[in-house]
Each structure stands twice: as structure tokens, then as C-alpha cells.
């Protein structure tokens, strides 16, 4: 194709990790689209890997190509949107550096406190990843998006509750052993370096008789040291549900944040509670 453009004005869309224009040369740039007005969108030749994209506006009257000074840099941010299931989720959007997106994830303390007070979610799941489009740059993602996606995939410990010796006696404490974990560290290699997710779990117990207890940020242990106990008042068979709520923090490439709460569950179905009656024998 005949290229009659000069990169007299270069607008840089810099995806993470950011690449300064000073590092770019004309050879790094390839045309990857037309603007709505028929101009050319230039991308970095290597941006299929999600490194960086450079965009220019064309001007006629020249046959030379030279990289000018950057005027605007676009950065990736975490954009709140509605997923295919109609639920709010987070995807990667791009915005001019220095401007504040109106649809971004708010992580400031004031917002977080307001959301917490109103019982609203502090974090949202990542939107489903879309298949790459042939010929188009692969989407670059922020460290927080990478952390979010990884968090959704890690195999969280699942409680495997047990109450020895397999039944309980009314009026006597039953010692629930959670047999799970309340802290786990996950690591994963990413393009930004090692991702570290520190997860903390706490147990909430539904004893099946209308009583609930928790949260417990420690393991339930057997008699006599266990601290997660319950006294049933009536005989019967109870479905006990142990829910472990996982919160997590992440660190990656000098950034850090909080991940949404996930939960795992374990059950004891039809747990028998019996009664012992003292009998005076002869």
C-alpha cells in the first residue's frame, strides 16, 4: 500500500508495560486500522504480545515517516461493565493518562467504606476473556486483572468437616474439626513478574438446628482443645454446613490490591444427635 503519511503527531496508546516513545522507531510501527475519518491507526509491531500500541494521525503532503513527540499516552485501567450474564464484572479499558475514568473500579478508601457500610460488593469478578481476533492486537491487561483472573482459578482449600466419633449427645458439646486451611499463598509467573496472592479463610458454621456460629479464623480441632463447638438440645439428624469465606490480597509488579471474596463449603449430612439417659441398675 502506498503510505503517504507523516507521523508528525503521534498519540501513544501505551498498554502495560509502558514503552516510552523515545524507545520506538518508525520500524516498530505498523498500520493496524483506519480511524473513523480514514486516518491510520498505528500499532507497535510487537503489540500482539500486549506490549504497547502507538497511534498516529496522518497528514498528507509528505512521504516521510518520522516519529514525533508523544502528546497523549493511553493506559489500561480496570473498567466496570456488564457481563454476558447480566452481572457486573471487570474488564480492561483504555483511557488517556492523567484522566479519571467514570466507569473504573473505585479503590479509594472512602468509596470502599461507603460500599462496605451499605453491604455492596467491594470487588467484582473478571469478565469472561474474549478469544483473540485475528489480526488485532491481543488485549493487554492490568496487573490487577491478571490477579483477578488467577484468583478465580486457584484451587481453594475446601473444609472437610468431621465431628468425632460420628455422633453427638444432647447437652454435650460437639467438637467440629474443620480439616481445611485458613491461610494459603499462591504464586504464579506473569509478564509483570511473580504474582503473589495471600488468601485468608474464616469459617461460618450452620449447625442445621437453626443455630449458626462464626466467623472463626482458626481451624476447628477435636476434643479437648477444639474451639468450634456446639450443644444440640434435641435428638435428630442434622445437616451441618461449613462455609469458608476467602479474602485475599495480591502483589504484582509493584502494585497490590484486594480480591473479591470467594467461598468454599463442606458438609456433614444427616449427622445423628442422640440422647443418653442414666439408668439405675440393680
Amino acid at each position, binding site marked *: 500500500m502506498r503510505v503517504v503519511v507523516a507521523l508528525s503527531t503521534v498519540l501513544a496508546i501505551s498498554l502495560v508495560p509502558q514503552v516510552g516513545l523515545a524507545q520506538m522507531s518508525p520500524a516498530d510501527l505498523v498500520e493496524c486500522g483506519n480511524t473513523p475519518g480514514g486516518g491510520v491507526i498505528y500499532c507497535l509491531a510487537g503489540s500482539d504480545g500486549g506490549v504497547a500500541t502507538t497511534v498516529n494521525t496522518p497528514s498528507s503532503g509528505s512521504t516521510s515517516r518520522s516519529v514525533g513527540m508523544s502528546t497523549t499516552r493511553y493506559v489500561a485501567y480496570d473498567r466496570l461493565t456488564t457481563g454476558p450474564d447480566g452481572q457486573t464484572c471487570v474488564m480492561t479499558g483504555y483511557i488517556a493518562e492523567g484522566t479519571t475514568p467514570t466507569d473504573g473500579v473505585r479503590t479509594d478508601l472512602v468509596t470502599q467504606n461507603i460500599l462496605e457500610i451499605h453491604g455492596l460488593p467491594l470487588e467484582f469478578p473478571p469478565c469472561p476473556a474474549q478469544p483473540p481476533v485475528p*489480526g488485532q492486537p491481543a488485549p493487554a491487561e492490568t496487573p490487577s486483572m491478571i490477579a483477578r483472573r488467577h484468583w478465580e482459578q486457584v484451587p481453594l482449600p475446601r473444609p472437610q468437616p468431621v465431628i468425632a466419633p460420628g455422633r453427638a449427645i444432647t447437652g454435650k458439646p460437639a467438637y467440629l474439626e474443620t480439616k481445611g486451611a485458613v491461610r494459603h499463598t499462591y504464586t504464579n509467573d506473569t509478564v509483570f513478574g511473580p504474582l503473589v496472592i495471600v488468601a485468608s479463610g474464616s469459617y461460618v458454621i450452620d449447625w442445621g438446628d437453626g443455630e449458626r456460629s462464626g466467623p472463626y479464623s482458626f481451624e476447628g480441632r477435636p476434643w479437648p482443645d477444639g474451639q468450634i463447638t456446639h450443644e444440640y438440645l434435641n435428638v435428630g439428624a442434622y445437616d451441618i454446613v461449613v462455609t469458608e469465606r476467602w479474602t485475599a490480597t495480591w502483589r504484582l509488579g509493584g502494585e497490590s490490591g484486594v480480591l473479591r471474596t470467594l467461598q468454599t463449603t463442606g458438609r456433614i449430612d444427616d449427622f445423628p444427635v442422640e440422647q443418653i439417659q442414666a439408668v439405675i441398675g440393680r
Partner: protein
Amino acid sequence: MSAAACDSSSGAERGTASNTVATEPAPTTTTNPYAVPAVIDVAYVNRVLAGLDAALGDVVRLVYSTRTIPPDAVTRLRALYGNDQVLQLFLDGLQIDLRSGFRNYKPQIGNKSSVVTQLVTARPDCIFAQVHRDYSAISTDTSAVVNPQWVALRPSTPGKPPGPENPTDWVLIYDGFTRSRAQPENPCAL
């Protein structure tokens, strides 16, 4: 092909009279011009592309008149693109034109045209075609326009009636060209 049917948005949204080219009024017949025919041919695909080009033109005129990308523009674009990456590329292009002050834009902005030069795949669930793009209704300088380009379409959400943002039954899942200028991998074959 400089304009197309089915623009139902208001003139105020599209901008002032000085920068708006009126698109043709919506058809008055009850026949849906975008209903998928038994055989999808070039004429049908050209008709769909004209409808999409007109809807995209409305967004361009809205951005041109407001000198920003309002939420309504993004809503409209979401109705036209079925892939966030392609949508993002269009938004990037819009921002470039916006920041250049719409250099080379004509005083009255029409629609770009997309004319099929090769129909690669024509199925009720996916269309992939090579097209020739003409921006002369928008810009006074079209020397940088790349041709040929390719478009891929898939049906918009099943059961959802076409809305004013997208009168057609189709959304774009590919729109542009590859860096090597070779035909892209057929999205309909993926």
C-alpha cells in the same frame, strides 16, 4: 453508497444541522430489509454493511458535534460491535480523530461505505467478506485508507429485536485489516 437507511436517532443527538448529513428515513414497508434471506448474497451483505455504516456514521457525527465521546456513543457502539477488541480499536480511532480536531473532516459528515468485493463465508450464523472502503463522504483526504479490508458479522443477540442503535440483525466481530495485508484468519471458521 454514501448513506444508508434506518437512522432513527434524533437530529439533536447527531449534532447540529451544519455538520449533519441526514440519512434516509426508515423504510415504511413492513418488510425487514435485514431479515436473513434463504441465500445470503453480496447484495444482502452490502445492505447490512450500509446499515452498520450509517449507524456508525451517527456515532461519528455525535462525537463530532459534542467533541467528546458521550456514554450514549459507547452504548450505540456496543450495539454494533460483538467483540470488545474491535470496539476498542474503533474507540481508539475516534479518540485520534477527536484529538486531531477532526482534521480533514468534511463540514457535512456522511457515512463511510463498505462494498463487498469477495464473499468468503455466507452463513446465517456468520458472514466474512472482503470489502472496499470509501471514506470520501467523511474526509477530504483519503490517501491513507487501506484497501481491501475485511469484515466479519455474526447475528446480534437471538430474540432481541433490532433497536435504534443497530437496525440490522448483525454485529461486527471483525472490522479492518491485518498488518501483513493478507486475508485474516476467517473468524467464521474459528
